[in-house]
């Protein structure tokens, strides 16, 4: 930590990635994430890295796959439609157990939608997105500082679990300019990666693959992946809470929605409403156990999202019918005001 920089979230994620030892970026232009790519186009060549503008999002993620095959830290970024195109390779990466960091600065959708703030890619990011039984580890920053911190962290987690990590945020986080402090730059430790392809010098050849034609072998591989996800669920859940001690109504929100609704929660507290806030920072793994425990004593949950309601399903599963789960969402790039959220909170609280 040290000097404070005034930067956008997109630039902060890019700078943090370089400081985390990422030297390889492959991407394709799409708004509203362009500043991330442009920052790396400027910085990576100066700092011993490679920036490559690929022919498509498909090619870009496959280049990440390739760099990752050698054990290098690599990343790509895109926005919703581009992230859809990357899903095939992300599934391959999960199946091949390759690390890699993917940033999704989410657009309003479906289809081409718009470039306004949205968080409607929750299902895609959290539930798989591509084919097969796999999970991304999903991080959801709520400020520019957190975008930087999570970008830095993403590379470690991704390597530790040999699994793709996705950072999911809206254009608000990517475009907003805030002061940010960075971790010290580092080179990734020169640890031997016993799976990386480096030429079979003085050792048996290595193979990176997801193909397992025998049903038994593929089921075993799937069991291994599921065990890994169970470890991730046990060890990597991150969340922030406010005013939960005496809360009767708990607001659950992530990313931009959380940022906005937190102001409404403060207003509600000032006015004497016993309202608390739970902000998942990891969307997978999800803080299910926290909600399950809260459901034993709080009356209601209210979920705020920039979507038609996606995370709300996970809150309902966690609450398991023990507390009511309400929802308020805006779609298509519309963002509620804190006053609007406050009204919804009061309605829910009294209702």
């Amino acid at each position, binding site marked *: 930590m040290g000097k404070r920089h005034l930067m956008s979230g997109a630039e902060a994620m890019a700078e943090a990635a370089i400081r985390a030892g990422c030297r390889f970026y492959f991407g394709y232009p799409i708004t509203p994430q362009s500043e991330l790519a442009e920052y790396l186009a400027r910085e990576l060549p100066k700092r011993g890295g490679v920036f490559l503008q690929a022919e498509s999002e498909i090619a870009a993620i496959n280049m990440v796959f390739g760099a990752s095959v050698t054990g290098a830290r690599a990343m790509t970024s895109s926005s919703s439609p581009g992230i859809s195109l990357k899903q095939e390779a992300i599934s391959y990466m999960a199946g091949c157990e390759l690390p890699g960091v993917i940033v999704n600065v989410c657009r309003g959708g479906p289809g081409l939608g718009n470039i306004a703030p949205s968080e409607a890619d929750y299902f895609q990011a959290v539930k798989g997105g591509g084919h097969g039984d796999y999970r991304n580890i999903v991080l959801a920053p709520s400020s520019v500082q957190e975008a930087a911190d999570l970008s830095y962290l993403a590379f470690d987690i991704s390597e530790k679990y040999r699994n793709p990590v996705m950072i999911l945020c809206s254009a608000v986080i990517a475009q907003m300019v805030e002061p940010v402090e960075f971790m010290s730059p580092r080179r990734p430790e020169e640890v031997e990666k016993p799976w990386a392809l480096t*030429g079979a010098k003085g050792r048996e050849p290595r*193979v990176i693959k997801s193909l397992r034609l025998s049903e038994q072998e593929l089921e075993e591989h799937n069991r291994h992946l599921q065990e890994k996800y169970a470890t991730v669920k046990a060890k990597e859940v991150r969340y922030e809470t406010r005013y939960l001690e005496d809360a009767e109504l708990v607001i659950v929100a992530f990313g931009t929605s959380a940022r906005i609704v937190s102001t409404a929660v403060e207003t509600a507290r000032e006015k004497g409403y016993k309202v608390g806030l739970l902000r998942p920072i990891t969307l997978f793994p999800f803080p299910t156990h926290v909600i399950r425990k809260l459901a034993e004593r709080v009356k209601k949950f209210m979920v705020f999202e920039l979507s038609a309601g996606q995370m709300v399903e996970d809150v309902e599963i966690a609450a398991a019918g023990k507390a009511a789960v309400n929802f308020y969402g805006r779609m298509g790039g519309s963002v509620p005001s804190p006053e609007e959220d406050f009204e919804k909170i009061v309605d829910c609280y009294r209702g």
Partner: protein
Amino acid sequence: MKLVFDRPKSMKDTVMHYCPGCSHGVVTRIVAEAIDILDIREKTVCVAPVGCAVFLYEYLNLDVTESPHGRPPAVATGIKRARPDLFVFTYQGDGDIAAIGLAEILSAANRGENFSVVYVNNTVYGMTGGQMAPTTMLGQRTTTTPYGKGAMDGRPLRMAEWIASLDGPSYVARMAVNTPANVKKARKTVIEAFRMQLEGRGMSFVEILAACPVGWGLSPIEALARVEKELIPYYPLGVLKSVDSHKAG
């Protein structure tokens, strides 16, 4: 006694799954021999395709990665950009390279990415049961062109010529493995292509016309004859481009 013929070090001692009369085994051996001759086995990473050669890692005694269908040139780009000191090649079929992976091969070639491409063209999707490929000849019957391929199914794509038209690649050739003489020429060409990468010249690309007796509904001998009679006239053999002009044939 003097040993005159042995398995290349870059090949594993295993039975291949290829159908009788398939050319993949010959091409795999040519690649392994080239790697042995250039003594680069311990710095090689191979990118295997989706298709008949998907099990390449079972046969090559090398570090091998799988790749999504059509994406080997993008995967190889990532490998080579991260580790320029490695020797990297893709091994791809005609469905992989000329249909689903067109954008990736053309873009990588146009960037002059410094890896090598071994492209096996047998004019059909073998692995999935003999469907039409972009390289299927007009009139050729496949399981998805049961009445023969028409012009509006797509004229057979000459990939080597297309790649050779770009400034990025250093070396582009088309060979066949239907006769012992052609096998020898193909081997020499693959060695030359690999050398281009070792010299840092940019992408080297060798298309190899291959027989697929099962996919074509022919006997192995008839299939080799078809390569000679039908394929070579449309897909002419030779070195189409070499940055070392004296080496261009």
